[in-house]
């Protein structure tokens, strides 16, 4: 038989600059593994990208989600997840947290600091999860998600309540006051000032941990690179309005590391300069992010890191270009313009407040609608991550809004961030194919999105 929309071996045309990202990520984690040997303090943290605060104080950092995502993307997550489950953390708990906590268990069991095999040897042996150095401090700065806010507390207890912890409380952007608007209004401004106050207090606390005066000049320098990288990334993504779109959501997911946890410096600017140049060249060559762009889709929800290549190729095989997404386009220094590099705390606060899960549904939906219009989206895939209710909470509202206001068909699929067992391919296929059939039918009768 010939199933006409069954994926037929077409693969995503991933950006070539992605290979630079892999090297940066590997080098970064190698530096983390070597932290203790080099006499560096190590901070574990989750949530928003507060790493510039640590970088300015010459502390090395382990971002829980980034580390868990890396393990999943490289098929090394299982030992950590098993260790956490054996410690009593059930499968329904956020898989990022479960994996990271499992690494904490493994680090405790190891009893010595990270040392020994190289990154690649550990990766090949499936033992990467054991390699991160134990923390010298925790900073908790988690927006919206209650598990995230408790995750560091769990780690604090796991390490015997002996490791200092600092908590930054990120207020939710409710948008309830009459003057509320995206990035503005009295409520947002109050939240911003509250964040600035806490971030400043956090720098004082960091100075206490290091015993050194906090280096504000260094923070400005880091934020200068971060702002430039953020701008270049947004500009490159916006160029994907072109048809065919020269890159996909999956490319932008692969490119999150430089704006999430890689040290702010010339390398991240260089990365996005090259990425943007590749995008510009692809547009000139009429080269798409997939071999044949027939449908333009939007991805709502967090990434499924176990399946990033798989999903990129799956949608490519359907001739469906996942042009944009909430995860990639509504976070990670995307509000770069708000950063004043001479006085960066306020701009940092703004970016932390408007991360992809911290906006109330009405504010969030307006941003999603804008993106769908900008990128001329024809259908929305909503990835409901089984263990990330923070991301999936508003998804029925988002689905309803894009259906009613833009006439877009939607497909809700289930999966997870780093727990592969929650993903079932045939169930995903049925929903995605039904949505594509629906888009196709609309095109035939001349109903534009």
């Amino acid at each position, binding site marked *: 038989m010939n199933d006409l929309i069954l994926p037929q071996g077409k693969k995503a045309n991933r950006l070539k600059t992605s290979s630079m990202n892999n090297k940066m990520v590997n080098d970064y984690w190698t530096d983390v593994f070597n932290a203790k040997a080099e006499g560096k303090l190590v901070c574990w943290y989750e949530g928003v990208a507060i790493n510039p605060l640590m970088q300015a104080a010459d502390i090395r950092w382990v971002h829980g989600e980034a580390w868990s995502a890396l393990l999943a993307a490289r098929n090394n997550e299982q030992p950590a997840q098993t260790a956490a489950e054996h410690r009593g953390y059930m499968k329904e708990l956020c898989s990022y947290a479960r994996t990271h906590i499992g690494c904490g268990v493994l680090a405790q069991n190891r009893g010595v600091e990270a040392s020994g095999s190289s990154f690649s040897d550990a990766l090949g042996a499936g033992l990467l999860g054991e390699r991160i150095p134990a923390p010298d401090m925790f900073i908790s700065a988690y927006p919206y998600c209650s598990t995230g806010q408790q995750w560091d507390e769990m780690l604090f207890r796991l390490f015997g309540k002996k490791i200092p912890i600092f908590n930054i409380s990120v207020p939710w952007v409710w948008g309830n006051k009459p003057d509320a608007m995206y990035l503005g209004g009295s409520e947002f401004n109050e939240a911003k000032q509250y964040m600035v106050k806490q971030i400043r207090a956090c720098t004082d606390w960091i100075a206490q941990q290091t015993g050194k005066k906090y280096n504000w000049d260094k923070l400005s320098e880091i934020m200068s690179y971060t702002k430039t990288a953020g701008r270049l990334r947004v500009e490159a993504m916006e160029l994907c309005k072109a048809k065919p779109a020269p890159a996909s959501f999956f490319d932008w997911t692969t490119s999150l590391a430089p704006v999430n946890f890689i040290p702010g410096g010339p390398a991240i600017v260089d990365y996005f300069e090259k990425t943007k140049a590749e995008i510009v060249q692809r547009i000139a060559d009429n080269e798409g992010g997939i071999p044949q762009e027939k449908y333009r889709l939007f991805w709502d929800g967090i990434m499924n890191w176990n399946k990033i290549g798989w999903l990129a190729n799956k949608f490519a095989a359907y001739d469906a270009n996942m042009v944009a997404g909430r995860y990639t386009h509504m976070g990670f220094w995307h509000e770069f313009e708000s950063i004043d590099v001479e006085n960066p705390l306020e701009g940092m606060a703004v970016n932390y407040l408007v991360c992809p899960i911290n906006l109330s549904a009405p504010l969030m939906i307006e941003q999603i609608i804008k993106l769908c219009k900008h990128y001329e989206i024809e259908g929305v895939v909503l990835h409901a991550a089984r263990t990330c209710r923070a991301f999936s909470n508003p998804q029925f509202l988002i689905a309803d809004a894009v259906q009613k206001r833009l006439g877009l068909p939607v497909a809700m699929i289930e999966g997870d961030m780093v727990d592969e067992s929650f993903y079932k391919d045939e169930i995903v296929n049925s929903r995605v194919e039904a949505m594509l059939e629906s888009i196709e039918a609309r095109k*035939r009768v001349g109903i534009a999105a």
Partner: protein
Amino acid sequence: MKSYVMGIDFGSTTTKTVILDLKGKMVASCVASKGSISAEGVQVSMDGAFAQAGIAQKDIARTVSTGYGRRMIDVADQSYTEITCHARGAIAMFPEARLVIDIGGQDSKVIAVSGDGLVQQFAMNDRCAAGTGKFLEALARAVQVPVEAMGALAMSSTEKLTVSNMCATFAETEVISLLAEGKSKPDVLGAVHAAIASRTAGLVARVGNRNPIVMTGGVAKNHAAVHYIEQALSAKMLIAPDPQIAGALGAALFALDEVAKPSAAMMDEEDGADEAMSSARGCATQPCKTAAKLPANERPLLGPM
């Protein structure tokens, strides 16, 4: 001469086959239960339909498959998802319907259909079997009544009880607890059917309630399920004499469209897969004017799509 088209719905628990002649008249339908995604079930279903129609495979001009096992059917020329085929089949049965509720063995789906037959929106159950035929089967076992008898028993319930609609396994535990508390089987089964109705109402809310509603799938043959769903939606549902064959009927109607448009759908599919798909969908989404005329006293099965 190849004078017939065939639709096969290869589902999780049953396989349904529908054969139409080239005028769109149904000449055979057969439902076979041979276990999960069973190749034997497909053969039994096809053989049953061939016997009923008095024809053989060589008489079939085109076959379209649907259902979870749709890609496993060698004789199929084309396949579409259950959403597209159930909508097509249900609207062919009841052209006035604007909402299709299909509860099959493995999944439940609600499909909003526009006046011109387009699938507007759809919602499906998540990975859990709660709210599907499997849910009823599991709970029939827990209550120790045959699945065919559970509907009638549930209709005689007198006490309102509650069973979880979120997880089939939890629901089974709850059912056993209720029986251990001395609750009657009819009351427990009433709660089971109320749970499936509540789950279905949730899916309806996601796509937006609209009327008339047609219910398809094996569960539509269960009077208690229909009763509780109608109660939950405050609406009467349209139900065909054989609601299980809606998907296969929809698939057969697509096959008929494609036979009527040979330039598009029956071209060399190795060379023109995408064009064939587009063209086939095009016919599928509009009133099909290409099928042969029926005698005045026969109702065509082609819906408004």
